[in-house]
């Protein structure tokens, strides 16, 4: 390219430029290719992985619904708590400094000294828990938020917390038998908590945000969140004050009579709502394991006992409804009576032969006369009344483990069973089912399934449950007569005088029966009283059973419990006292 050969070769700038240009082009090309690769080909994937790194997905826990009573008093709720976790490997590096930045203590000893007053524990024991090579040691379970904030303020490296939720029952063991409790996973393990677990559980939500290094949300980043739907609040028909009082009374009675257990139920007769369902020594759901296993449930529905003499009411009611007797029909009452098939029955106390009215039979709880009344109806008829009144089936209250009791079909009744069923033996029912019979009588013969749940509040809206449809099982006339007859029980000459309440007319029936002893025998006794108040315009039916008391008669053991619980309930519910004196049927034909 050089032109003059004689001239000094100084190189061609054009060539160098070309070389340089080529090099630059190659580099630019490489950059371009890389750019296209990064932006166009690998771009979406890279952006995605970067976003994933920034994106923080958090499950928003759905709070479990509360359980409240009929007045809105909270019976079960959930509170936030913290499990304090220690990484023991980091503790030796801890340095305690004073205000001037001087190191005043190191390691587990210093950490334990600082933590001990907050946790109210012995520093030596606490210190031992901080030493080791466990990266995940649970130091405290269910610490309150305040406790965790105090611990967090110490700034000890290696101590962190996990937020948890704790189920709490502010009323301790009041209604504990109904509520049940939740297990460690937060699912109901007993009681209402268990049967209504699906209602109480909410649907957890999730929140997806892009976050910066310090945990702040990047405002221009993608955000996406699904709201957590909290569980429904369950409204029970229980009245906490009534429930508490009933528990006190039954506890006192069980203690007084050294009984095995006892239970009381209060039913609002017009609606079938259960206002109180008390079991003795009820479980405290805050600490269920402190109660022996057999006492953790609701024996009021889980345990069936022979209704005994309270069952005579059903026999006499059937007889009234069938027109076999009237309240004043004269009935023979021998102390001992042998039926044509050779079965012999006796009354509970020896007495000369006498004649009672039907009312007198109930008031004196005469076995032989009851058999004579019942014998005027077929087994099938009596069986149908028993079924209609709810014997032999679960009430469907909604508590776990409810027993249907045992009511054999009448075709399976043997020579003795057909008679003893007339006074409530060889059948068994739970207390609630037995009280339901009286609630039906009190509700003009209309049977209502007892219920304990009034409704639910889901997402702020209260949805009451539809009231059950009452079923007329006996006529209002027979029911009215029966109530009037049962008023005699609590008056002179009756077995239930201890159940009488000043100012209110009450009707009821005592009962004493053998019941299963859990060893296959029938050696245990159940003393019971079931009644209705006020007799002239019934509001509540109250049932009491005390199992294996040292005094065996329902009149002595169960009637006072009925008195206390019913008196308190009537006052608490604002039921005005009775204004009229009862118009009692005569107990003996000669009195009329």
């Amino acid at each position, binding site marked *: 390219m050089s032109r003059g050969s004689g001239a000094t070769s100084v190189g061609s700038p054009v060539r160098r430029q070309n070389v340089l240009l080529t090099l630059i082009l190659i580099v630019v090309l490489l950059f371009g290719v890389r750019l296209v690769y990064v932006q166009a080909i690998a771009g979406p994937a890279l952006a995605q992985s970067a976003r994933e790194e920034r994106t923080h997905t958090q499950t928003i826990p759905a709070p479990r619904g509360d359980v409240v009573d009929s007045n809105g008093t909270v019976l079960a709720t959930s509170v936030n708590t913290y499990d304090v976790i220690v990484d023991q490997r980091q503790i030796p590096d801890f340095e305690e400094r004073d205000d001037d930045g001087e190191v005043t203590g190191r390691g587990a000893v210093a950490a334990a000294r600082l933590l001990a007053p907050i946790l109210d524990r012995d520093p030596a024991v606490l210190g031992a828990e901080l030493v080791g090579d466990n990266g995940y040691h649970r130091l405290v379970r269910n610490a309150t938020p305040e406790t965790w904030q105090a611990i967090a303020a110490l700034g000890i490296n290696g101590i962190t917390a996990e937020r948890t939720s704790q189920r*709490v029952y502010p009323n301790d063991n009041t209604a504990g038998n109904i509520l049940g409790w939740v297990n460690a996973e937060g699912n109901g393990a007993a009681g209402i908590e268990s049967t209504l677990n699906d209602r109480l559980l909410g649907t957890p939500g999730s929140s997806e945000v892009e976050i910066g290094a310090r945990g702040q949300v990047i*405002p221009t980043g993608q955000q996406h969140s699904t709201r957590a739907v909290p569980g429904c609040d369950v409204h029970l028909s229980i009245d906490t004050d009534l429930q*508490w009082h009933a528990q006190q009374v039954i506890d006192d009675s069980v203690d007084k009579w050294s009984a095995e257990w006892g239970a009381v139920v209060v039913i609002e007769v017009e609606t079938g709502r259960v206002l109180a369902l008390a079991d003795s020594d009820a479980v405290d759901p805050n600490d269920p394991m402190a109660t022996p296993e057999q006492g953790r449930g609701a024996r009021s529905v889980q345990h069936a006992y022979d209704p005994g003499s309270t069952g005579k009411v059903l026999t006499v009611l059937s007889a009234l409804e069938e027109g076999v007797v009237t309240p004043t029909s004269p009935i023979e009452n021998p102390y001992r009576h042998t039926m044509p098939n050779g079965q012999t029955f006796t009354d509970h106390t020896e007495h000369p032969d006498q004649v009672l009215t039907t009312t007198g039979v109930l008031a004196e709880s005469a076995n032989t006369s009851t058999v004579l009344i019942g014998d005027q109806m077929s087994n099938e008829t009596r069986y149908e009344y028993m079924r209609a009144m709810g014997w032999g089936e679960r009430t469907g209250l909604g508590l776990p483990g409810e027993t249907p009791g045992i009511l054999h079909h009448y075709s399976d009744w043997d020579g003795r069973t057909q008679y003893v069923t007339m006074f409530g033996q060889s059948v068994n029912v739970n207390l609630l089912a037995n009280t339901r019979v009286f609630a039906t009588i009190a509700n003009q013969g209309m049977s209502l399934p007892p219920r304990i749940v009034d409704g639910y509040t889901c997402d702020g809206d209260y949805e009451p449950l539809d009231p059950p449809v009452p079923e007329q099982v006996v006529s209002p006339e027979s029911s009215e007569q029966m109530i009037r007859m049962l008023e005699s029980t609590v008056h002179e000459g009756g077995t239930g005088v201890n159940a009488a309440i000043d100012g209110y007319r009450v009707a009821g029936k005592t009962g004493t029966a053998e019941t299963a002893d859990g060893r296959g025998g029938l050696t245990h006794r159940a003393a019971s009283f079931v009644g209705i108040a006020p007799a002239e315009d019934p509001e509540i039916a109250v049932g009491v059973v005390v199992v294996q008391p040292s005094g065996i008669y329902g009149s002595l053991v169960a009637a006072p419990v009925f008195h206390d619980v019913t008196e308190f309930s009537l006052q608490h519910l604002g039921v005005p006292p009775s204004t009229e004196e009862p118009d009692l049927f005569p107990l003996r034909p000669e009195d009329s």
Partner: protein
Amino acid sequence: MSAQPVRTAPARPAPSSWRPRLQVVRAPANQRSLLPFAALCLTILVGAMLGALMLNTAMAATAYEMREQRIDLARLSEHQQVLAHQAEQIAAPGALADAALELGMEPGEGTSYLLLEDGMIAGPAAELSESDQ
């Protein structure tokens, strides 16, 4: 340099008597300076960038603030929860009964009635009103 002959400048033509007629012309209009326009552009550009920066900064600051507030909110609602639970515990019938007993109160005995016809008190309270008189 000295070796080269000194070139003499060509003799200027002798000034002739003709002179171009001079006349005052209007000064050409000054070409408009680009400076204000450039400044305007720059201002808009810088302003926009600063604005965006400030907006972003403000958003980031708000994000931090939201985080703080959220932490505060969580703490306060936890506190509220604890207090509500304490109130529920204190209001529980069992706790109330214990507190009342501690204050020297006693459970009422039975039901008392005020009879409207004659203004008399019936029931356990009757004895109390008698002893007051």
